[in-house]
């Protein structure tokens, strides 16, 4: 084994504490170190994935205490896949924002990169941890760094967005604590595997209510329907790459948390139906709302929420095919939505309100960015041969195999709306004339590299989905096998 899952948390935190010191000596280090750390994390995840695919799940304990006493980190094909995705995206976001405009100021840029790094760390922590209270701590890390990143631009209305986020986040964390305490009071343990094993002992009523509180708490981060009022504001007001980070990293972690709850901890069959209902409502409301947006980033935000609803639906199908599809969707959504946020923020760069009409005629001024945005749009609509098609196909196939005909119909009808609003933007990029004369910002080279990387992934996965389907398949098997998870964690011999 080359490295250990614990380094995913230890190294970034160490770096976070070191950066203020090095920053006093060498200013550029505040930008470079987070990048190196993120790259390290990505490399580590790849190397561990290689190990995992050969030797099976890695369970890492903290402070030498075996579960259920100590906290443990689980690096399985499932969590490893998400870790890999998140760290990769984290690195992309870093790359994209390396030459950030506000970098002239030392202090804010230091804060930006530290917060970004910790955001990724927190998300990875949520995914890796095997302890439910530890998950709460990581959720809070993610939230607070999220608040900080959202309100990064002092000129915009970012504080308002951040405050809404915080408001919801604070309420959510309260209920998360209540849920954790209900579980603890009944089972006397906080370890997920241990809870899962003992769950049949718990009183059914308390089980239901604790799950309800969990869903409320995690739902805020996962942007499910009535709890996602903050999300569009945050996506709009945060710096462009942070929108990508939210869509690609934070939400994924939250979805992971809810999935872990339903698939591993609880033993309700009905929870899957709940997933489908919530996912469907989220999907419908978000996509219909996105149709009527006049601001680009808000549209992307609602679209992102809608996609997450689709992911919930896919998880709610509850079969291995469903999980496979959901993971594929998550992967695609992370890549594509980041691409859209990246390129979209250059298309409306210097505009105050970032209306969709500002992209008019950008195809001429920013050809590569526009092409990438177009590829992203086509991919997210699910047009073959781009990558989005395969995930949509996987979802529908999974739903069909479970005989959910009406669900398929609804998904497809809503997908049409999605196509409509994306195409409206693409049409504007290429076929509308630029009205007012405002200066456009050419993407810097690092941003361009990041975008092209993502674009290439979209195309390559579109033409050859087998590239990741192996990972997805193993991850889905891993998630479905609850008994194996419990066994792996609780019988660790270390």
């Amino acid at each position: 084994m080359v490295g250990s899952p614990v380094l995913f948390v230890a190294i970034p935190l160490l770096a976070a504490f070191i950066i203020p010191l090095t920053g006093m000596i060498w200013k550029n280090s505040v930008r470079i170190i987070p990048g190196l750390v993120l790259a390290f994390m990505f490399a580590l995840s790849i190397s561990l994935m290689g190990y995992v695919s050969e030797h099976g799940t890695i369970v890492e304990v903290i402070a030498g205490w075996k579960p259920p006493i100590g906290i443990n980190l689980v690096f399985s094909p499932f969590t490893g896949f998400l870790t890999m995705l998140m760290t990769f995206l984290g690195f992309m976001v870093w790359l994209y924002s390396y030459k950030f405009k506000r970098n002239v100021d030392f202090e804010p840029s230091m804060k930006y990169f530290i917060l970004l790094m910790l955001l990724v760390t927190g998300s990875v922590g949520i995914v890796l941890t095997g302890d439910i209270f530890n998950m709460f701590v990581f959720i809070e890390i993610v939230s607070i760094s999220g608040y900080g990143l959202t309100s990064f631009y002092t000129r915009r209305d970012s504080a308002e967005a951040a405050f809404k986020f915080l408001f919801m986040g604070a309420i959510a964390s309260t209920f998360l604590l209540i849920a954790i305490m209900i579980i603890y009071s009944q089972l006397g343990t906080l370890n997920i595997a241990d809870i899962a094993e003992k769950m049949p002992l718990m009183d059914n009523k308390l089980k239901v209510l604790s799950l309800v509180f969990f869903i409320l708490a995690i739902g805020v981060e996962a942007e499910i329907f009535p709890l996602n009022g903050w999300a569009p504001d945050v996506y709009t007001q945060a710096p462009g790459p942070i929108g990508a980070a939210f869509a690609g990293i934070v939400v994924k972690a939250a979805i992971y948390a809810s999935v872990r709850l339903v698939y591993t901890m609880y033993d309700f069959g009905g929870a899957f139906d709940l997933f489908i209902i919530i996912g469907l409502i989220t999907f419908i409301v978000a996509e219909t709302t996105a149709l009527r947006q006049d601001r680009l980033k808000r549209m992307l935000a609602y679209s992102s929420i809608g996609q997450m609803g689709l992911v919930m639906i896919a998880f709610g199908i509850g079969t291995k095919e469903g999980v496979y599809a959901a993971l594929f969707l998550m992967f695609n959504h992370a890549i594509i939505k980041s691409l859209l946020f990246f390129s979209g923020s250059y298309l409306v760069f210097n505009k105050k309100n970032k209306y969709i009409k500002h992209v008019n005629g950008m195809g001429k001024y920013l050809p590569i960015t526009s092409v990438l945005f177009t590829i992203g749009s086509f991919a997210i609509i699910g047009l073959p041969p781009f990558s989005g098609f395969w995930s949509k196909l996987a979802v529908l196939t999974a739903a069909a195999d479970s005989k959910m005909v009406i669900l398929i119909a609804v998904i497809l009808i809503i997908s049409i709306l999605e196509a409509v609003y994306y195409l409206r933007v693409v049409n504007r990029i290429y076929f509308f004339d630029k009205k007012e004369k405002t200066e456009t910002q050419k993407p810097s080279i690092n941003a361009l590299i990041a975008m092209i990387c993502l674009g290439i992934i979209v195309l390559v996965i579109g033409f050859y989905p087998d590239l990741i389907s192996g990972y997805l398949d193993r991850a889905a098997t891993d998630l479905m096998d609850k008994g194996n998870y419990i066994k792996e964690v609780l019988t660790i011999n270390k």
Partner: protein
Amino acid sequence: MNIIILILILFFLGAIITAFSGKISALVQDILFLIVLVVPAVLFFTGVDMNTESIITFSQAQLTFGMTPLSYYFSLIVMGLAVLAGFYTVGQMNGKKRKGYYYLNYILSIGAMFGILMSKDFISFFIFWEIMTWASYLIVIYNGKNVQKIGIKYFVMSAIGAYAMLMAIVLIHSITGSFLITDLISEYTGMTQGMQLLIPALLLIGFGVKAALMPLHIWAPDAYSNAPMSYTAIFSGALSKMGIYGMVIVFLSLLSKVPEGALIRDIVAWLAAITAAISTLWAIKQDDAKRLLAYSSIGQLGYIIIGVAIGTPMSIIAGLFLAFMHGVFKSALFMVVGAVEKQTGTTDLTEVTGLIRKMPWTFLAALISIIALAGIPPLGGFVGKWMLYESLILSDHFMLVILVFFSSTAAFLYCYKILFGFFLGQEEKEWAHVKEAPAIMIVPMVILSISSIVLGTYPQLILKPINAAMMSFGLPDTYGNLWKESILFNKWGNQIALAPIMYGIMLVFVIVTIFLFFRNRSRTRYVTTKDISTSGEIIKEHENLTFSRGFFQPFLRAVEPVMKRQIDKYMLSFAKGVEDLFEFTRRIYNGNGQTYAIYAMIFLIILLMFGKNLLG
């Protein structure tokens, strides 16, 4: 390397290379474009036979490519038209901007159509179907006019169709566990009755959109007329046939196997007949040649669908034959309109007049194609219509016959309108400068016109592949035997030929012409169209006597009650209503953080109170 894969790769790589070769020089780009179109066609006709099959395996799906007799028949249409329209395109696009973009999507859509025809499983079928859709969508919005309205309408309708198809595909997969078309066919009879109806219905929605079947046709007039004419030739000639291709498979291999299928077949046939009738009326009303032909295409596709849907051997032959003929003459007509547009800058039938002496070759192509379109005996269009009528009558679909008769009679009106509008009438000064289109545009049109004549005389040229295709569906060998059913072919026994009639007509024509011109021609002199009998008045040069506005007004007044109710108005107002509804859902996000928190509380309360029932 399998030849089908090779052709596909050639198309797709060629498309990209062609698109970017414009940076080198326009000529190189044109030549590359033609090479990318011609070489695959040559490869296809020389290298592909029924045995070529190749499989690409993905973890999710197995993409299987191969040729069937039916797809061979449709490939003839696609490949032939692609090459001819390709040459025409080079002429038409000369000097236009965004050539690379156009060429890219042109080749992509051709490649995708080829891919559709070669697909033996639904996944690759759907992939290519979607590629075709967005490539054609990008061409529809090529002009940049009405992008949001027309383009989106086209895309939405396509998406409805494609997603219906996708739904059917995943349902099929859930039942058969396979994406192969042959597996569907073999397991179809064992399905539940609901699925037996649902799957073909969904597939038919998918194909019906591309085949412009009412009420899914609303995109077609706008999209056809908005695309550049060189592509509309493909659009109407080949792309819409993909819908027909799918329908043939659905009707022949699925619906004909179960008794309930008759219901769907009748519904489709009726819809098609109504499509044909109504769109013909709309075509009569149009003053823009592009839109006129677009509506005309919808009507013609209606005949084809009727033929395919009725499902007797002869009607299928009629449908397939008409499909080919429609590809030939409608492409030629769109090319004609494109040529006129290029030379005059407009396609408004009320503006352009009297081009016959300026653009004689174009007129000739238009004349022959129009005669074929109207289904007037000597030319190919009639053969198809004849078979269609006969099969309808022999299978007792009398109301359909009347609808078809009505629409094909009414078609004469717009046929005349388009010829008169562009080529006949007063020769105005405004168009005196107009020249004949360049040869590269004329030649494809003329070739297509000649094909109409040839196919009218020797229909067996394409009846052979049709027969092969039908035999592959288990229908009897019609080529040698069943022809006796048709009176048309009776007199000459097994010889399927209209040649004697054709020759007879030619002979009479020559006799009459000689009679008229014998010792007469030299004494007759040409006078301009200003020199006409006007009860003694003398017409000045600038006076425009052309009768072109309100061309069929009395007739349109007569059919007013039918045309008042437009389906696309209803659909648009429905779409508008839906969007307004979404405006309401948007208001949920009212911007107040506290409200969001209240939503969260309500959500919590609901879950608390009903969670137990749900989670159990």
